[in-house]
């Protein structure tokens, strides 16, 4: 696992690796259930039409708001509701994870692997900062 060491709170008991490393997509795409393109505000990459283009946390939030998400009061599982968790550091977004139906979270770690992790805190630290917002939308 190439990501070992980057996330000190990850251990064998709280996550599993679910893919090989790839540069084909990133955490934002993966949170949006896509695995064939890299979402980024930089020129040349995909970014949703109408979303704010910057590295501020508000830009990542807006990229999901334009897809029908809204701010959620909690990270708890609600049947029929899809949730994503935004990580930020110093006002800039660093990561986004997608909730799985059983309450675990799916994350693509940059250009490394996909993982499933039991808690949001498992990825918090000096690299990703903290979870700063939960967004939700009805499952279609």
């Amino acid at each position, binding site marked *: 696992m190439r990501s070992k060491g980057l996330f000190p709170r990850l251990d064998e008991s709280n996550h599993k690796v679910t893919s090989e490393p790839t*540069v084909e*997509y990133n955490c934002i795409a993966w949170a949006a259930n896509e695995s064939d*393109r*890299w*979402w*980024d505000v930089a020129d*040349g*990459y*995909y970014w949703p039409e109408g979303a704010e283009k910057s590295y501020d946390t508000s830009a990542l939030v807006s990229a999901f708001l334009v897809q029908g998400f809204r701010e959620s009061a909690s990270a708890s599982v609600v049947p029929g509701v899809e949730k994503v968790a935004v990580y930020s550091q110093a006002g800039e977004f660093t990561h986004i994870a997608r909730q799985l139906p059983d309450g675990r979270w799916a994350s693509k770690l940059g*250009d490394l692997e996909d993982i499933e992790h039991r808690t949001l805190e498992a990825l918090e630290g000096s690299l990703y900062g903290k979870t700063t917002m939960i967004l939700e939308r009805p499952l279609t």
Partner: protein
Amino acid sequence: MHPAYQQIIGMGKKATPLILAELTRDVDHWFWALNAIEGVDPVPAASKGRLKQMVQAWFQWARERGYEW
């Protein structure tokens, strides 16, 4: 930005064929540097974020301008 990446951008257009050669070897995120150096984004809307297609768009753009790598 990583200092090495910054230095490459600082090389200006001399870096473009080197980056293109690197993209021939390994698809990676050199597009920000190419955009910064060349001041253009030749990637068509349908290819945005699709790295292999982004590479091909840059190759085509560079060939049309006489770049060799």
